[in-house]
């Protein structure tokens, strides 16, 4: 174990508070419940400490490096022009919300107000969505991602101001994907992106949650800290496809919590891709709150150098007849370190649950490292659950086959590494994003290990 002890609880607690202290003054919300939510979170920030490797949930992931770096909120928004940001746009997306260092950028966004449009779909920043949709938002915002015991979720909620809100009314199917773009531009800045997706009964939507960097060149090698919270709520029969792309800079810290609530017979499909950050952690918690829901969680972490990428998922089958599928892959080069902790919980009474989980890992160097911990906890009798994890190198017969067709050893290895990751990328149903990511993966695998 490394020097986790360097960060004592007392210091860690002060660390979180120091982040809060830097928070810029913003107009307080006139809504009492929102004020109360924030106040509650502020109180938790004061009480909680940063986790260390002594905490079971953080055993493999040492974040002491984060505690040693000081961050403050962005004092002012960096002004970006559309041309700066255009390369990140996804052509299929017709609505887009852009946040720069956590601050909503209306001039770069194309929202959907809801009321004026015939479909009533809302894609909007929280502050404006609140005017007409507070009643829809109130029961969900901050209610699915618990912050009582999570220092990061608490810090995010304490900062809660701008947030991406997507509300899809009953039986409305949104054809084009919604793009939620979070751009980090400043060094030593902490941002707290927040998303709330509400899919009402029978509705369908695809949401892309996208984290990118647009540093000024001179800051290229500096760190920033993204601490994100996303809540996704699927009412009965709702269908949500959630694509998450984390392509932060190589020195960034990225910690994110995503909580998903599945209504009766709803369907949640998620593909999350982690390419960037010095240290990243993604907690994905999916709760089957009613019968017959389906979820598929696919993930890819492609890391090298000294990167660390940690995915903690929990699929909670609290109700019967639920289905879950999970395929998580890691490609680890250099002396990078990947962590996968995949918990599947089948609660008492959740009969006829069908859960399958698979974690496959490719280690490209002797120094690359993976900690994988599939956790199956079953308290119901009539269930079908499987899980498995593999850790391996490239198959030498496959390498030879490609060589025998004229590819060099290196080209053969790159192609196979790429293919390993492409299986996940292929599951993204948005052609241009898929192409973009395939290109990125191709370039990254070519430069590995």
């Amino acid at each position, binding site marked *: 174990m490394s020097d986790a002890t360097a960060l004592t609880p007392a210091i860690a607690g002060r660390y979180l508070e120091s982040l809060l202290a830097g928070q810029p003054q913003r107009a307080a919300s006139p809504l009492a419940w929102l004020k109360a939510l924030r106040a509650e979170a502020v109180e938790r920030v004061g009480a909680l400490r940063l986790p260390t490797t002594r905490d079971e949930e953080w055993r493999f992931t040492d974040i002491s490096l984060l505690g040693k770096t000081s961050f403050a909120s962005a004092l002012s928004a960096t002004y970006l022009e559309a041309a700066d940001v255009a390369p990140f746009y996804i052509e299929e997306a017709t609505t887009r919300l852009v946040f720069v260092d956590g601050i909503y950028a209306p001039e770069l966004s194309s929202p959907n107000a809801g009321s004026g449009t015939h479909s009533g779909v809302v894609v909007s920043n929280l502050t404006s969505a609140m005017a007409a949709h507070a009643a829809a938002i109130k029961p969900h915002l901050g209610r699915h991602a618990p912050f009582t015991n999570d220092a990061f979720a608490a810090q995010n909620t304490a900062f809660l101001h701008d947030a991406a809100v997507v509300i899809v009314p009953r039986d409305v199917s949104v054809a084009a994907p919604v793009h939620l773009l979070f751009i980090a531009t400043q060094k030593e800045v902490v941002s707290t992106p927040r998303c709330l997706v509400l899919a009402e009964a029978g509705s369908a939507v695809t949401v892309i949650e996208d984290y990118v960097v647009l540093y000024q060149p001179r800051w290229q090698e500096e760190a920033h800290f993204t601490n994100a919270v996303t809540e996704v709520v699927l009412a009965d029969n709702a269908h949500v496809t959630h694509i998450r792309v984390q392509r932060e800079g190589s020195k960034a810290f990225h910690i994110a919590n995503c909580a998903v609530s599945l209504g009766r017979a709803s369907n949640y499909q998620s593909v999350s891709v982690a390419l960037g950050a010095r240290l990243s952690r993604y907690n994905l918690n999916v709760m089957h709150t009613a019968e017959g829901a389906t979820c598929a969680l696919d993930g890819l972490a492609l890391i090298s150098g000294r990167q660390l990428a940690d995915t903690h998922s929990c699929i909670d089958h609290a109700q019967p007849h639920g289905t879950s599928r999970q395929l998580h892959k890691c490609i680890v080069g250099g002396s990078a370190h990947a962590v996968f902790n995949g918990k599947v919980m089948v609660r008492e009474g959740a009969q006829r649950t069908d859960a399958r989980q698979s974690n496959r890992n490719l280690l490209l160097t002797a120094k690359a490292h993976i900690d994988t911990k599939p956790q199956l906890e079953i308290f119901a009798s009539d269930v079908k659950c499987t899980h498995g994890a593999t850790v391996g190198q490239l198959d030498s017969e496959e390498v*030879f086959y490609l060589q025998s067709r004229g590819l060099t050893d290196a080209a053969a290895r790159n192609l196979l590494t790429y293919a390993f990751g492409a299986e996940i990328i292929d599951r993204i149903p948005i052609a241009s994003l898929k192409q973009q990511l395939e290109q990125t993966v191709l370039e990254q695998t070519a430069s590995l290990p």
Partner: protein
Amino acid sequence: MIYQDSKVLLEVRGLCASVNGVEILKDLDFTVKSGEVHAIMGLNGSGKSTFAKVLAGHPAYEVTSGSVLFEGQNLLALKPEERARAGLFLAFQYPIEVPGVGNGQFLRLTYNTVQKQRGKEELDPLEFDDFVRDKMKLLEMNPDFLDRSVNEGFSGGEKKRNEILQMALLEPRLAILDETDSGLDIDALRVVAHGVNQLTTKDNAMVMVTHYQRLLNYIVPDYVHVMEAGRIIKTGGKALALELETRGYEWVSAEHQAAASVPV
């Protein structure tokens, strides 16, 4: 076909090779000239595939002695990809599945890699698509196979056709077909054999490893060799294959042993 004064393509002398410390090839001699079609037959485990893989440069097989010249250059000094680029092609007995690598993408990549190496023109995706579809027609292959992963979930026969498709694209000087006929139904065999025959010229050569005469009805060999325990123990013309089909291998083995035990 045997041509007068044709060039020697492959010359194997006293080749010994082992895998995991076990010697499989034992003092093997073998010569192929351009234009010729050879068949290698022999019982299971006699070393036919080992020989093919040693020629292709499989890293698991260690050459312990002997020499292999391919068009006059030391083949054993070349990496597998250099052998392929130099014009050696192995159609695998068990083609490898490569999940996640699109067949079309893979075929274009190998084609362009080899073309570039030979100083010839590379094709962009559209040009290549036309080109490969033509070749697929020759083998009566459905173009849908371009969109699938390399060999993944292909039937035995489909994998074999895909091997011959690669051969058609790479235009090797020397092709070794390791049991390409196994797993093919009679119609598929006819199609594949026709495809192979279309590819043979007086400048290239073919070595077919097979257990069955039926392939040799379609692709007629100039020489038939019998392999046993890692060496060629008998060589004859196409009639030898027919004889093996009716009489089996035992007599060849007996004949070889008798010859070996004749006092000098």
